């Protein structure tokens, strides 16, 4: 279980990688996450999560082209692996099944 566990922030990163599809590299991911979630995310936190996800096998990466605006350094593009996709689906399924199981009376409704 330990290897397949998906943390909340990891889930967010994984989703963003899927979302950006062919353009998922560090800065793009960072900005997308900041824009969508509104939280502040450091480069360290992002790359640390990416590193973990790659080790778990949810992501793989390829090196891209070098540009001047990156101090002559190449980008690393991330792609979702089938295992990663499955992990995301599992999380969603779990959540949906639990949402469905909540009795109507337990929720206040409108405010959601």
């Amino acid at each position, binding site marked *: 279980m330990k290897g397949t566990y998906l943390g909340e922030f990891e889930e967010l990163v994984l989703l963003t990688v899927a979302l950006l599809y062919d353009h998922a590299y*560090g800065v793009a991911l960072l900005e997308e996450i900041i824009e969508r979630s509104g939280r502040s995310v450091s*480069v*360290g936190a992002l790359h*640390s999560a990416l590193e973990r996800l790659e080790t778990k096998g949810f992501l793989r990466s390829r090196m891209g082209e070098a540009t001047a605006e990156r101090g002559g350094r*190449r980008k690393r593009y991330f792609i979702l692996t089938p295992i990663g996709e499955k992990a995301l689906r599992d999380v969603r399924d779990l959540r949906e099944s639990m949402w469905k199981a909540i009795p109507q009376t337990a929720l206040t409704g409108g405010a959601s």
Partner: protein
Amino acid sequence: MSTEPTSKPNPPAWLIALLEHFLSSERQEDVLGDLYELFYRRVATKGERQAKYLFLLDTLLLLVRPNLTRHTSTLSSTSLSTSMLSHYLTMAFRSLCREKAFAFLTILGLATGMAFSLLILLWVQHEWSYDRFHSKADGLYRITAQVSELQTAISPSPMAPTLLGQLPQVENMLRLKPTENLLEVNGEKFEEKGGYYADASFFDLFSFPLLAGHSSTALSRIDGIVLSERLAKKYFGTRQALGKIIHLDNHHSLVVTGVMQVPLNTHLQANYLLPLSFLEKQGHDLHIWGNLEYYSYIRLKENISTREGVTQGITTTMNALFAQNEKQGQAVFGLQSVSDIYLHSDLVGDVPSRGNIAYVRLFSGAALCILIVACINFMNLSTARSAKRAREVGVRKVMGARRSELVGQFLTQSLLVAFLALLLALGMAWILLPFFNTLTDKQLTLRLLEIESLLGLFGIALFTGLLSGSYPALLLSSFQPISVLKGMIQQGRWSLPFRNVLVVAQFTLSIILIVATATVYQQMELLRNKHLGFEKENLVYVPIRGELDKHGEALAAQLASNPLTSQFTFVSELPINSTEGSDAVWEGKSIDEQVIFYSMQVDAHFPETFRVELLTGRGFSAEIRQDTANYLVNEAALRMMGMDAKQAIGKWFDLQYKGKIIGVVKDFHFRPLHQKVEPLVLEFNNATRGKLVLRVQSQATKATLVALEQIMNKLNPDYPFSYGFVDGEIAKNYSGETRMGQITQTFACLAIFISCLGLYGLSAFTAQRRIKEIGIRKVLGASVSELSFLLSKDVIPLVVLAFLLASPIAWYLLHGWLEGYAYRIEISPWSFALAGLLVLVVALLTVSWQSVKAALVNPTKTLRND
């Protein structure tokens, strides 16, 4: 970014280098690329500064990510890895627990040493902290003046304001004039000392916190008074005393305009402040250059780079100013840093609170000595036990432990002991602090939560741990595995002599301290009992204040009418620490130089009241009118003038005015016994001023005081009656010596205690090692006393050697100390004999405790296993 930058801004190079060094090589490329990209975007949107700041932040946040940074695999093989360290700690704990008694002795010894060094360090720190808390303290100076041979702390009042007006580098100035007043609050009268008239700039120069009132206005009101927190509480029971009324000297009504907190560590222990303008309004001229009666402070501007040159310039200006404005007097001016006043200043007319740099050095040295003695103990006990751990070392070496690792292990253990001892020492220091405060007359507190004290404590523990652990660590790690594993316990060729050297060093120190204690005590006895040339016992003095000087005749008549108070005299000052003196000229004076004679004003009853012997001539008489211009001199003055007693009578003499010498008094001491009696001239005190001194009968002291109080209350109702004893005042001259005596005594006890603790441990160890030998001897018929002596006698040559070493050192040190006294004891050989004997007895008792125990053991117990 309004202007086009010529070159593109770049991320800081050092941060890039840092990242390149620490980021793991796989992630480096893209992470750095991301950082670059972000940086350039931020430069465009948020500006360069912000971008650089965010870059720094990102870098720091990156470096704490373990999965992105380079693995420190190269470091893990050294001895400092965490697993090795925890192993060392475990071993250290186990070896301590295995021998609890030894562990306790070492820790207790170290802790005692540390506790005392801690207390002394606290005191030293306090002494150094004086007047360093003022804002801009290093630009703060006091003006000093040298008049003939006297260095004084006082200067003329126009000096500081003139400097402020003329020199741009002087930022502000302050003048203070000490005063004593009668303060009346709600009908209750208090005589207060430690008051100062001060310029309104007081709170700008001295950073005394104001608890009530405002620093810029507290002294601007002419009828204002600023009270210390203590006085405000005493008078009004609260710090909120603003606006309350205080009557001054029965004449003036003042309003409290501020309540200040006077820090403990300032030379200026002021009780209250009055505005200088108030003094001026009463007709005090602040423009006289000739009178030196103010403490003047100046503050230099902050941006002055070379203080030396500037102070030199100011000194020159001051001397020029004085010469220009004051034609008659001669004085040379100087500046002293305010933070130096408490410890370094030894000036005439200075404020009362005074420290002594010599004591600070002495006690720092003593603290270090005590700590070293404690460390020696630890070394001794550890090396003595080394045999027990020899096998462990052998096995470790066989298993491949390197020497550096073994050293690390033993140092870890000594550090552990040091830190345990530190904890104990903190507890001890906390308990001892109140006693220590009485001993040093301070109000020190242990402030453990401040970063400096934490660092200091950590430093002490580290120092003791490393120092005391170094020798055992080196010794133990040097064992050859092959021989120790074969069972040959090798002691190391040098370990026994070395251990003995340490014991000798400890006892040397103890003996020195004991001899010092005895000598200081004897010297104090001498000072206390020396006949001063007058009888100091049973003399009561009353300061003349208020209206009393106008009722001089009535006072004299009333005193004379009561037999209890009939023996009295009026003197200008008590013969305790006289400082008054003038330029003397006499008939036939052949030397061309200025000669200063001390002077004192006395009346006709002085010789009989003080019981000072009149050698020739006569004393002053109220009936003879010319006596107001006549003089009495002492023998020292005669010697200086080169006359004998007969010749002197009738010769003219000039000390500010010309008169005749009418009598010679026998030398009596009017200054502390550090100096010989110096030339003294007695002038006729015709008025009622200075101090009234009464000789009382020792059985009737109480009744006399009651009678005196009645008379004083009748004639001087505005002032509360106050009195003092002359011998009490004289004793205050030697409070420094008294304190030093107490402190050396404490140190001596401590040194002996710690040394004995070590010796006890050592003897226990020796007895244990020779337990079989003792068993065999006992079986063969040795008696308990013979065996005890056998085990104890080793210590005798050590003590003798320590005695031989200590004697010359102690003699040299004490001789130097006694040089400071004109009247001193001969250092008696008895104090050496006493110290040596004492140490020998204590050492033998300590050792024999173990020896007797070992000798009493039934040999069947010790020998049954063989």
